[in-house]
């Protein structure tokens, strides 16, 4: 009973914080994600994994928010925050560039010949 009460409290708290609609969003996005990947040719699995890898670099936004909230004399937070922004950027930029390099190779030859 204690646990059930705890869950109810949690949901109530989320509702207060207006977080409940985020949970709806989570559920919907799970379905979108499944739907997007289910019918992809296996040829594209590697680039797709790499592309998804770049997209979760969106954690960078969180790192930026953390930095924005850190007070200028809180050195530890600033150091960790700057590091978080740095590695987050690595994730984003590296992810997109690697994916682009992979996909660059999927261009069909005949098209290229027509252009040139």
């Amino acid at each position: 009973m204690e646990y059930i009460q705890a869950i109810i409290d949690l949901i109530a708290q989320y509702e207060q914080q207006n977080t409940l609609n985020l949970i709806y969003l989570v559920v919907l996005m799970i379905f979108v994600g499944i739907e997007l990947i289910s019918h992809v040719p296996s040829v594209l699995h590697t680039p797709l994994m790499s592309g998804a890898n770049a997209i979760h670099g969106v954690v960078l936004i969180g790192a930026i928010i953390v930095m924005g909230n850190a007070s200028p004399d809180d050195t530890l937070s600033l150091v960790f925050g700057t590091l978080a922004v740095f590695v987050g950027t690595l994730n984003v930029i590296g992810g997109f560039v690697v994916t682009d390099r992979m996909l660059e190779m999927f261009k069909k030859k005949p098209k290229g010949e027509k252009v040139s």
Partner: protein
Amino acid sequence: MMPYMEIGYLIGSVSFVLGLKMMGQPDSARKGNLVAAFGMAVAVIAALFFTSKGFHVISNLQYIVAAIVAGTVIGTLMAKRVQMTAMPEMVSLFNGMGGLSAALISIIEWRHLLHTSGSPEAMDQTAALPIGMYIPIMAGLIIGTISFVGSIVAWGKLNGKIGDFRFPSQQIINAVVLVAILGVAYINYGEFNATHSSLYFFVTIGLAIVYGLLFVFPIGGADMPVVISLLNSFTGVAAACGGFLYQNKVMLMGGVLVGSAGTILTVVMCKAMNRSLMNVLIGMAGGNGGGSTTSATGGSVREVQATDVAVMMKYASKVIIVPGYGLAVAQAQHVCHELENLLEAEGVDVKYAIHPVAGRMPGHMNVLLAESNVDYDKLIEMEHINPEFATTDVVLVVGANDVVNPAAKTDPSSPIYGMPILDVDQAKQIIVLKRSMKAGYAGIENELFFHPKCGMLFGDAKASLQKLVNEVKAL
């Protein structure tokens, strides 16, 4: 006032979905990647220069911009310089960076939480710790740390720096560690005050690091793509935790999208190898069932010379090349393409048979061969090429092993039994380029090599192909 920040985040979210959708089609894939990258840029700008109240340059902008510039330069250089064969470990490394970022965010927010609700004035109200914040912080910390450590181990394994590492009853220990993580995190919530909880917090981090190590160590090299894909979705979930924490919808949508897409991708990859996810995670490949197939064959291996193979191929009307990881290791894709061109010039119909899990990642072979300008239309997926083997004169297996092992069809005791394979034994002649008789990643013998139609050309894939090219030219 225009809600610029919300608009920026909305554009970001929509372009993630759209970009991922476009990446699922060969024709629009590259554009899809750019669409997602554009969305990311818009979202970052929104975070830097706008709040929900309007235009407002974020504090500490100088540090943020410096970190972004440094990350952009280093990230671009790393991504541009990496060899095509090393792509999988690069993806793993970048994935780990995302996990680290999520873990760092959680550490800072935890300190924040301690200073606000854990300050001496608030000490007497233990209930002051908002669980709505505590859960995303701890989840982000634990998942982010596991993803970071796991990705680094996976990176080291693909590099060949770290070997497989198993010890008895590892599964039980893993489970115990996982339970311990959750337990300590739970105690930490109950014992929330400024002195003790930091200790519990650091214990949680330590245990998560241990779990990350234990999680990836026992998994064999061939299963790494599956693990990377899984860790990829972990990082997605860690990013989504940040979205919960800040009520930030673009983080939440991006994170959950990757979390769910990554999970499905993992399952699809497992299916292509006919393994269950559980099976991969426990590290079942290798060791098991190796003994049963060895003696069953009873044939002997026939070694052939490059000259004979060259003649065979030059006067064939149809040749199918089956590339595998050996091709990638030897960097033989360019020579392979050269051979293909030579044969085509002689009027031979040359195609490539691509097994879904050939190489170290699904699609690995396509990327590699595309790099050396092999025509995309020549790369034929397994379902479409299998009926063609019966009408093929020569099959050239370049560094592939398990994906052409007939034991997957005939031997129920084999660990790869049930995995769909390329039916190369239907062809008139089979030539296997291989360094030695060593078993493939599944650690099992391949009776194909003892098949009467099969000839072995031993040596490094690149050197052997070069020999073939020279011989064909000389004829």
